[in-house]
């Protein structure tokens, strides 16, 4: 009995690696510390009432943000481990298997568990406020989205200490990831973690489309909407059409692995190409899902900090929409060298380049928004400038990759790695950081310290170029991606070493950012006006942080930059409070069910990972029960009485 238990434990828990023992200990300690703190300060109830059961978009946004930053940390540690291994040739810091696991978790985490929740954080925080709405269209569903993401990410990350990490790359191509060549549970963690969080993403897509189409303040025509909302609309349209393909790709691979089917196997008539198609039908649009909101953020930031209207609004909207449509027609550029005919490759190559056109237009429009403006050099504008610069060159190398004959040479080389990091870090992350600094005061009611922020900025930026420019060179030297080491005579040492230095500089940048946040929590400049940047859109018309109901009175919108125009006319929402009587406000109820339902998904997922069918069944049954309970629910909203709204506005100094 004991022996069997021992054997089970040694398979169940990942063993043999000092690093993993260390993180085991760290995880246990941190968990104990959290439990202790919560118990000691009697905060359990608070946690449940204020956060776990919340359906408030602002709080959900904050939870997304915290998760994204944590995942950025985990993915970043993965990155530093890889760069350390590659700094010099023939190192044994990581062995082959370990390296393979780390690049797999790094890629997956950064795209699905860092970039996605980061954009969702900003969707949640900014969109309802910009639209003049009191919440999203489906607050309950919004909570489900978050908890599905949360438990999906948890399941995926659990693989580090239980069962073993996935090791098939973030694209997880079969037949490598089929049972014969990848028997461990790691790959199952990948499939189920992504599946569970993917369901949440589809729900978010639907939620924000309806929010944007139906919940705008009176008078806000679509063409008067802030550009960030347009970019969210574009991104969500891409989500709802792209994510089902991922769902199917993951599902079929899971059926292959768990039921012995033959979708993508080498035997039985399977066709691995089919997975690769399905994956990229999602995979390419996915990169646009994350970059489009970054474009939207830039448009807001550039206009606000130049104190000028955005240049070429209609062009901006058109280019967002063109990008979202064309992004469906380019997926095969990820495998030009997989035997497609010259005709097919030409089509997908040219379609890919076409995306460069609207992107170029956006850059021109941003520059001309600054032109004849008054550009305030604050952190959001720093990151904006960095993003435009970096992304312009990332787009340039993208066009080179889309030129098919070049891709015949640089596909799967470090050139490709440099390209997509330039677009994903230089584009997405820089853009999101601009948004983070921009909306931070709105979320938390204080600004982040500029000095520390600039240190972070320069370390991160210079580090970025030091890290990734050498990788273009490595691509030209013929270094392929995903090798865990290289021979000393390859001539790759100096470039790799430089690249590692850059990576550590970015790590230092990240630490500065953490210090900046901690410092600012205590000493940051408080935002008492609700409008610290002299903003243009409605989120700056309410206090920071916004009250639960956002707007005591929904403003009537007449112009594009609604808040800016109101200020020009000497109006404000405070006047509205005096002019109109307060009315009861209709708000959604909190609910613990989204959390519990997602927890059941997690239980089901965990069971399936280990092929413990009973546990999978229990989990799915729990999901079904919570769904029926939801269906039986008839009233999930309440009214905040007018007097209470009045009291709260008075407390905020607005009445």
């Amino acid at each position, binding site marked *: 009995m004991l022996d069997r238990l021992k054997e089970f434990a040694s398979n169940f828990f990942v063993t043999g690696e000092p690093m993993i023992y260390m993180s085991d200990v760290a995880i246990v300690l941190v968990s104990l510390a959290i439990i202790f703190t919560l118990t000691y300060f009697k905060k359990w109830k608070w946690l449940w009432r204020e956060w776990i059961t919340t359906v408030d978009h602002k709080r959900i946004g904050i939870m997304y943000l915290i998760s994204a930053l944590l995942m950025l940390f985990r993915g970043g540690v993965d990155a530093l481990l890889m760069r350390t291994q590659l700094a010099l040739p023939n190192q044994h810091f990581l062995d082959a298997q370990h390296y393979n696991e780390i690049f797999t978790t790094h890629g997956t985490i950064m795209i699905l568990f860092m970039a996605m929740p980061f954009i969702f954080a900003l969707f949640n925080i900014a969109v309802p406020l910009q*639209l*003049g*709405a*009191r*919440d999203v*269209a*489906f607050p309950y*569903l919004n909570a489900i989205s978050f908890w599905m993401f949360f438990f999906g990410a948890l399941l995926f990350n659990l693989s580090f200490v239980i069962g073993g990490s996935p090791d098939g790359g973030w694209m997880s191509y079969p037949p490598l990831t089929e049972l014969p060549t990848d028997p461990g549970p790691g790959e199952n963690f990948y499939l189920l973690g992504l599946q569970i969080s993917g369901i949440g993403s*589809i729900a978010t*897509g*639907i*939620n924000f*489309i*309806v929010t944007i*189409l*139906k*919940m*705008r*303040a*009176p008078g806000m025509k679509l063409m008067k909407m802030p550009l960030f909302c347009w970019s969210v609309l574009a991104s969500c349209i891409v989500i*709802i*059409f792209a*994510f*089902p*393909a991922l*769902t*199917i*790709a993951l*599902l*079929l691979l899971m*059926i*292959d692995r768990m*039921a*012995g*089917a*033959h*979708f993508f*196997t080498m*035997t*039985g*008539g*399977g*066709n691995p190409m*089919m997975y690769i198609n*399905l994956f990229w*039908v999602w995979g390419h649009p996915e990169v646009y899902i994350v970059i489009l909101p970054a474009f939207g953020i830039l448009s807001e930031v550039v206009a606000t900090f130049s104190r000028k209207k955005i240049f070429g609004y209609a062009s901006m909207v058109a280019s967002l929409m063109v990008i979202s449509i064309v992004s469906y027609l380019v997926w095969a550029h990820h495998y030009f060298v997989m035997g497609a005919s010259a005709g097919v490759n030409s089509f997908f190559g040219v379609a890919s380049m076409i995306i460069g056109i609207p992107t170029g237009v956006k850059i021109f429009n941003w520059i001309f928004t600054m032109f004849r403006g008054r550009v305030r050099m604050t952190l959001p504008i720093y990151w904006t400038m960095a993003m435009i610069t970096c992304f312009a060159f990332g787009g340039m190398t993208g066009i080179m990759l889309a030129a098919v004959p070049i891709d015949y040479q640089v596909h799967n080389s470090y050139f490709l790695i440099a390209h997509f990091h330039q677009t994903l870090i230089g584009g997405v992350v820089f853009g999101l950081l601009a948004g983070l600094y921009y909306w931070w005061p709105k979320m938390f009611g204080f600004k982040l310290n500029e000095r520390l922020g600039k240190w972070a900025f320069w370390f991160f930026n210079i580090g970025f170029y030091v890290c990734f420019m050498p990788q273009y060179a490595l691509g030209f030297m013929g270094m392929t991606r995903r090798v865990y080491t290289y021979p000393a005579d390859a001539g790759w040492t100096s470039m790799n070493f430089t690249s590692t230095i850059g990576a550590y500089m970015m790590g230092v940048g990240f630490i500065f950012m953490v210090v900046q946040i901690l410092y600012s929590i205590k000493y940051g400049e408080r935002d008492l006006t609700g409008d610290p940047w002299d903003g243009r859109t409605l989120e700056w018309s309410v206090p920071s942080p916004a009250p639960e109901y956002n707007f005591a009175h*929904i403003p009537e919108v007449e112009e594009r930059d609604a808040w800016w125009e109101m200020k020009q006319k000497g109006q404000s929402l405070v006047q509205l409070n005096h002019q109109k009587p307060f*009315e009861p*406000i*209709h708000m959604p109820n909190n609910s613990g069910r989204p959390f519990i339902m997602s927890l059941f998904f997690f239980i089901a997922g965990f069971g399936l990972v280990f092929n413990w069918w009973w546990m999978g069944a229990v989990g799915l049954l729990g999901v*079904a029960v919570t769904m*029926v309970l939801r*269906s*039986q629910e*008839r009233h999930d*909203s309440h009214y905040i009485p007018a007097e209470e709204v009045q009291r709260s506005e008075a407390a905020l100094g607005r009445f």
Partner: protein
Amino acid sequence: MSTAIHKSSHGSVHESPKYKGKVLPLEYTSHEGPLNILGFWIFLATDLILFGCLFATYFVLRTHVDGGVTDKELFDNITSFTAETVILLTSSFTSSLAIFAMRNNNKKRLIGWLIVTVILGLSFVGLELREFIEYYHEGYTMSRSAFLSGFFTLVGTHGCHVSLGIIWMISIITQIARYGIDAINARKTFIISLYWHFLDIVWVFIFSVVYLTGVVS
């Protein structure tokens, strides 16, 4: 009931049962009504793409029989899948009759037609299960060939959708029985009927792309 809800000032443009001069159907009169219905349409679009991907996979793998049974041989029992088709089409019709009864504010009829729809749905699932079990006994399982993997997954996914719809519909029937036809129940009923029609359309594709093509080829 509904008047209390649509007094809300939740930022919605639909503030009264009248919208742009037209009287709205009951299901649109609550605050959530129009939002949920639009949201559900979008959900159906995503579900359609989901099925689209399964159809594409099936189509690619249709001939990959690995020396085993082909579609022509597998679908020799024409009556079975024809019966499934007729039953599901009929259930789609009865769910429309249910909505019709709802419009006429006839609670009994509404419940009656919904129950008929559920029964038809159950018999559809039953027949399909019987078909699958039969195949299983003949050794035609998912792990035999890529073609069979594609077939069971596509048709099985549809079957799961139908089963889920049945549970959902029963849950709604109990609510209508208790609370009658109000804005909330009208919305729920309308949405499940959308879902039901959608599954019907998907089945028509399965019938033609999978079964008919198989028999004819």
